[in-house]
């Protein structure tokens, strides 16, 4: 394509400002200063130790996540197990999350798996809370699944139109998953998470947390658990934890780079077993994508 050469030429002719050299030098100077300051503030032996403990923590988390997954499955599929849990008065009686509908389909080499949760609350005076939550969840799941399938179909069309074969398309193994995970279930709170993901792109992943105060029969906000000054409390705790984690090598974007700039009433969180809120930031929200989702427990 001759036009492509012209485009390339135009690109090559983009003038480079003389200031660029200074900017690079400044970046290098800043980086050196930063690294030297960091070096001074930590002894090599310490950092080594930290590295190891960090890895251990990670592994522990994975194990916990796996155990959680097993528990969730057991809770929802085995009646015997459900009956056993049902004997524990609080967990069984006040509220529970169960799989409302599961659906698995495959069409055009796109695999869709939907597992929609529902909340059931036994307490009577919850003012239809469970119903409104369920309605919202079901709509959310449906919408996500529909949009994700449309996206994958677009991709397929484009792929086939540009000379890809059906076999090659099948090898892409496109999977769309809508599912949920129970984060905690205690005497006071029920926390769970509804998620949608596509294995070929992370750009549209969605997750929504539901935290229910079982005593009040209402959805919980950060203000409810941390009090009126929840912003200050959460921000101070998160900033402190970020500092510590930065010291042990984790990377966070600065506020100017679009990093953490304080919690709001829209900040995602769940309640953990200890009854503390755990604030969750999406991939890319406050740190490079390689860090994935980032959590901070706010002790109270």
């Amino acid at each position, binding site marked *: 394509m001759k036009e492509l050469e012209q485009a390339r030429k135009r690109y090559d002719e983009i003038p480079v400002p003389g200031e660029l050299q200074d900017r690079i030098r400044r970046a290098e100077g800043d*980086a050196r200063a*930063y690294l030297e300051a960091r070096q001074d503030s930590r002894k090599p032996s310490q950092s080594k130790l930290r590295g190891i403990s960090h890895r251990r923590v990670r592994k522990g988390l994975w194990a916990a996540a796996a155990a959680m997954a097993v528990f969730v499955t057991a809770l929802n599929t085995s009646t015997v197990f459900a009956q056993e849990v049902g004997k524990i008065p609080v967990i069984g009686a006040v509220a529970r999350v169960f799989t409302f509908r599961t659906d698995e389909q495959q069409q055009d080499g796109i695999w869709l798996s939907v597992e929609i949760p529902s909340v059931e609350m036994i307490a009577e005076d919850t003012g239809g809370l469970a119903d409104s939550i369920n309605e919202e969840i079901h709509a959310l799941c449906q919408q996500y699944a529909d949009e994700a399938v449309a996206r994958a179909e677009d991709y397929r069309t484009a792929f086939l139109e540009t000379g890809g074969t059906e076999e090659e398309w099948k090898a892409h193994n496109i999977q769309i998953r809508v599912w949920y995970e129970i984060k905690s279930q205690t005497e006071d709170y029920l926390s769970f998470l509804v998620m949608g993901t596509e294995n070929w792109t992370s750009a549209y992943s969605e997750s929504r947390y539901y935290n229910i105060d079982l005593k009040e029969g209402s959805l919980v906000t950060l203000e409810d658990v941390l009090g009126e000054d929840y912003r200050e409390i959460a921000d101070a705790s998160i900033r402190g934890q970020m500092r510590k984690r930065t010291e042990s090598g984790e990377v966070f974007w600065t506020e100017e*780079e679009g990093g953490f700039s304080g919690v709001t009433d829209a900040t995602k969180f769940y309640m953990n077993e200890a009854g503390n809120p755990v604030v969750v930031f999406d991939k890319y929200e406050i740190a490079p994508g390689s860090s994935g989702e980032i959590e901070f427990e706010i002790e109270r």
Partner: protein
Amino acid sequence: MKQALYQKIADYLIEHQNGLYRLAYSYTGNPEDAMDAVQSAAYKALIHHEMLRDENAVKTWCYRIVVNESMALLRKRRKESPVPEPWDAQASYIEKGYEQDDDLYNRVNRLPEKIQEVIKLRFYEDLSLKEIAEITETNLNTVKARLYRGLRMMKKDLEEAKA
């Protein structure tokens, strides 16, 4: 700090600053933002040099950070002055009334973000598909699909313009 690796990255940045700047400029569309993107990319590449496991990947590592920084800046700008646009035109920053100079360069800039990224790296920066896959953190097949799709879109576009 791993002195040798740090130096290697610093050398690369200094030697290839013009190329990295042009790449940033092709996203941001103005010199100020492009310089900001390169500067902060250079800073990040250096302070995180220990995260670079493969010493032979300095090039793709630097490119990746420049692309990420440029995109982040572009997104921020869009957020500041949101212009509702159809999805396919999202990546356009070209002012209207510029149509008479509607060569392929401008057309590339109007392709969907991920596709123009592949086209630019392949044809402007002469990177291999494998390198592009590393930079964009996608698999090789996705890069190929995007390249084919982009070429096809440009061809169609050009044919329509000539017709």
